[in-house]
């Protein structure tokens, strides 16, 4: 079985996503990186589901896709409002909660 390859791909995708979330300044790029991480997890779920010959892996993946769609909707709305108020979507400029 090619499980190792899938897991490796998932790990790479996840790491790329993490890098994007932590390092990119553009808010839209952060959201896209989150999508990368979610899809890395989806890949893992489907791969394990096939490996164990159960369907629940794919069911979870579908759920995650649905939730991710909602999440990205809300996220893009926040980014839009941020841009309207501050004329910027650079996430490192928003530090009102600084202690």
């Amino acid at each position, binding site marked *: 079985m090619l499980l190792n390859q899938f897991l490796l791909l998932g790990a790479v995708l996840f790491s790329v996503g*993490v890098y994007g*979330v*932590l*390092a990119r300044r553009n808010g839209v790029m*952060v959201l896209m990186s989150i999508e990368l991480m979610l899809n890395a997890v989806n890949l893992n779920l489907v791969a394990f589901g096939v490996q164990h010959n159960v369907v629940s892996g794919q069911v979870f993946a579908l759920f995650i896709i649905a939730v991710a769609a909602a999440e990205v909707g809300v996220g893009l709305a926040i980014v839009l409002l941020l841009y309207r108020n501050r004329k910027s979507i650079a*996430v*490192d400029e*928003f*530090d*009102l*909660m*600084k*202690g």
Partner: protein
Amino acid sequence: MWMLENAFLIPLIPAISFVVILLFGRSVIGADRVHRVGIAAVGIVWVLSMIAAAAWIVRVEDGTAGPDDTDSHALVGVSEGYAAAGAMSGGENLAAEDDGHGVVEDDGHGADDGHGSTGTEPVISTFSGWWSNAGVDFTVGTLVDGTTVLLLIVVTSISLLVHVYSSEYVKGDRRFVHYYAFLSLFTAAMLLFVMAQNLVQMIVGWELVGVCSFVLIGHWWEERPNTDASLKAFLTNRVGDIGLIIGVIILYGTFKTFDIDTINRMVPEKAGTEHFALLIAAIALMAAVASKSGQFPLHTWLPDAMAGPTPVSALIHAATMVVAGVYMIARLYPVFYEGLSIGSSSINLMAFIGGFTALIGAGLAFAQWDIKKVLAYSTVSQLGYMVMALGVGAWTAAMFHLFTHAFFKACLFLGAGSVSHAAHHTFDMREMGGLRKHMPHTYKTFVIATLALAGVFPFAGFWSKDEILLGALAGQQRAYPLMLIFGCVVALMTAAYMTRVIWYTFWGEYRGHGHPHESPKMMTVPLWILAGMAVVAGVFNLPAGVLSPIGLEGFAHRVQTYAEPSIYLNAVGLSHPDPSLILALVGLALALAGIAITFLYYWRNSGPHGLTERNRYAKAGYTFLENKYYLDRLYTDIIVGSIKAPIARAANWVNQNVIDKVVDTAGETARDSGRWVYRWIDQGTIDGGVNAIASGADAGGQGLRGMQTGKVQNYGSLLFGTAAVAAIVFVIVL
């Protein structure tokens, strides 16, 4: 017989009533209804007392004198054993006495001799284990015999009538609940005292009635004279109480028991060897009698005690509590009889104190304007009469006089209360007068009671007074001539001063203000009952000679037959004199002469009027009487004054040099230790600890502050970094 064995119920019921009234009187029962509880309780007790009296009479008539009959449910072994032994030795003794005296003196009693000389065993119920100390068991119980039953009848009857009377007299008083609670407590305490089985219990009852007296004299304590009077009563009684305690201790030392029955039975066998101890005990107990029963020289509290409400004066300071001393003598009569050699002397301490008190009390009654004080001095005088009777060996006469006196003196006091109720709360006879038209019931009952007190035939006082005079004339082995003279003079004076009271109160013109009116039924009915008793109470101890013409000899000397504890008294050789018609006529003549002289003086306006203004000696005598023989002056100014100043100086020195120093040192030490605690414990340790915790938290917060950048990506880095570290640890460890 059940009632006699369970006599403890009799004091228990008013005690419960006291607690109920005190705790629930104002809240549950209602302040205007508490008198019903008191009256109900005393009513039940009155019925029980009557049952007890009936049971006792049946017991005497049956002649159930055997010791087997006396042991009740819880008799203590020791006292039972002794009771049997004592009964036997007592029996032998009295057989011997009968040989000596019976032929000569006892013939006059006819049918009663059979019962009178054998004597009926008292019913003793002992509940052991009140407490025990140093191997001595202090018991509590009841001793019921004829003497007890006589007092039960007196106390419960007067108490019941006073309860009823008070419901009107004290109505609307600010301390109505309190008043009834203490009336109940007094009744309970007096009954406990009367039935005391041992001397310790007797002291408890004695002190309890003293406390009730104190509380009720000071019932209206807002006014200074009332509190002064109650304190005076209490403190004067303390003087005598020391005598009581000393007397009881001596009796215990002599007889090794507190049991009254045992002591009375042991007296004849100890009399020879322990005469001195008995003498000292009797003298010490006489001091107690002097304070409680208002005998010279401790009688001064009794007139002041009239500051209390009038029904209280009638119940406590005329009929019951003040006879406690007389009753104690009667209860421990063998001790006094042997200790003071009553049988063989022609004058002794008790007879002299009694006679002298009777005389000075009667003298003082002339110089009083306060109607209650006249009656108070009359009470002092009559109590002196009773003590004198006991002093000359006339036991029955004294108790009979106690019995009759309780009724007519209570009637007089309640009459005085009724007069005061009508005449706008004054007791000053100068503001009365002419009340016979306005208050017919009070007037009639007052006159009846006065005739009884004066000793006019056929009222109750005549019979009892005559027996006392007879006792003094006959004496025991020798006559008591001085006592007879005292008795006759007092009989004359009593009639005279009581007639004076009637003149000032009920005759002449009304001198007060407002319109006097007759008192309501709740007050006049008790008056009529008491007046009725003042008429008929004398029939309970008629001499046989009076009854033989109508064929009722069997009814003669009932008080003597039933009340006299002959089982004790015969053992010491007490004898009864034969009645003397001449002496009775002399006594009656004296009473009538007293009334006649006063009648002439006031009604006919003859005699030396204004003598006290004209004659220097008469004026001095009157002043002497007005100042009560300067006895109060002697006590407060000379005795108390001379002791007070050095004690005050010594107390001041001790106060300045010892107590203040101790207090100052304690204060300074406390201040210093307070400072030390403030500096080191409070500021140093506690505050320091709290501050250290606070500043630690502050420093930690400042350190962690740097982490809160507000940038989401920093938080994300920390999150993923931590997760990565945790994952590595997870993998390595597992």
